[in-house]
């Protein structure tokens, strides 16, 4: 018998067998199937078609993966993950997150003047960023996988147990670390990068006991943005070619990671 395909009931049958219906509508179709053997037979035939098509795909699938397809897939992953930096869609998300979590910081954070007023360790961070972060050959002493030694050394020198913050959530991977001995004291210098190899410097220093704590501050030095703050025991500085909002979002992520929040 001819079945009218534009019949709403017919659409409902299709939707039922593809699992597209909410439970109560699905129940109604099931009830209908008990009194409509023709509809029940159609459903059975369509389900069988689906099963056969899936089996055909299984049977046709070559066992060996294609190398070029794999390479193209990796390249696409690179391209898509690059969209995290500096792209309006992503930036809006970060901006929204920052407004939610650190409005206080930004509202009260002062724009520090450039140059001599930056704390010494922040000036060191800016210098280290310009020297090492852009170095494509040997930016770090300790690559990410052997950072434990650097962390032990830094923990001993800084008198604090240091944890290397994970910035995976922001698409930033640790490249590695360096230990710096400077006029501002021993410093742990970390480099992160995103999928497009944009580099971020993170510097951790001992907080001078005679100095007061201070909240998050932003500064611009040359073409980089610097964010720095103190948690009372340790001082932190971030340097990257990034917007104020991005730096604030990264700082927020670091404090959240370090305090386990």
């Amino acid at each position: 018998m001819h079945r009218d395909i534009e019949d709403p009931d017919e659409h409902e049958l299709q939707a039922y067998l593809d699992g597209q219906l909410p439970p109560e509508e699905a129940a109604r179709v099931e009830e209908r199937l008990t009194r409509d053997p023709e509809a029940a037979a159609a459903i059975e035939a369509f389900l069988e078609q689906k099963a056969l098509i899936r089996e055909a795909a299984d049977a046709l699938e070559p066992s060996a993966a294609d190398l070029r397809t794999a390479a193209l897939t990796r390249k696409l992953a690179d391209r898509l993950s690059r969209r995290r930096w500096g792209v309006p869609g992503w930036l809006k998300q970060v901006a929204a997150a920052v407004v939610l979590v650190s409005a206080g910081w930004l509202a009260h954070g002062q724009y520090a003047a450039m140059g001599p007023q930056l704390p010494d360790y922040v000036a060191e961070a800016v210098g280290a960023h310009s020297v090492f972060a852009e170095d494509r050959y040997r930016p770090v002493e300790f690559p990410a996988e052997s950072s434990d030694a650097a962390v032990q050394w830094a923990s001993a020198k800084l008198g604090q147990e240091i944890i290397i913050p994970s910035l995976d959530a922001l698409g930033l991977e640790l490249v590695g670390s360096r230990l710096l001995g400077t006029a501002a004291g021993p410093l742990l210098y970390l480099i992160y990068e995103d999928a497009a190899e944009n580099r971020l410097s993170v510097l951790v220093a001992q907080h001078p006991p005679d100095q007061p704590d201070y909240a998050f501050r932003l500064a611009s030095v040359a073409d980089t943005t610097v964010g720095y703050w103190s948690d009372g025991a340790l001082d932190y500085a971030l340097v990257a070619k990034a917007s104020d909002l991005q730096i604030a979002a990264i700082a927020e992520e670091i404090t959240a990671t370090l305090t386990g929040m």
Partner: protein
Amino acid sequence: MARSELLDQLNGHVAGLRRYALVLTRNAHDAEDLVQDALIKAIAAADTWQPGGDLRVWLFRILHNAFISDLRKKKVRREARIALPEPVVQDDQTRRIEVQQVLAALEQLPEAQRRPIVLVALEEMSYADAAKALGVPLGTFMSRLGRGRQALRQILGEMKVTKLRLVI
């Protein structure tokens, strides 16, 4: 989302694209070409993907456009079809014939009906997403799916009758 996470997702989606292309083209070489063509177009169009958007729907959409432009170029579907490889695990001859039959029956359908049937069979996708992936309005998608399935059922039914007659 980190690159590794994206890559995991992409690998899953590419496996889906390949299965779908295999059933559509029935030719391993054509299917791989089609998937690679789609990936190249996706790389070039990476900026059109909105982070947080549905990556799978976006990729299937690109594959479709690639497939359609490929069809236009070739005008005629290639006749060289691979035979199904010997089943490794199950040696169920009847099932094997049925699988061959469904592929042959799909072949007789118009392209516009074949695509929604195969997509919905292989990918767990909402109708709305599937319509988006195929670039047609939801209503059009649903009538093509329904019509196609009816036609497929009829073709498969006729094949069975023919087979029965041969057996008797």
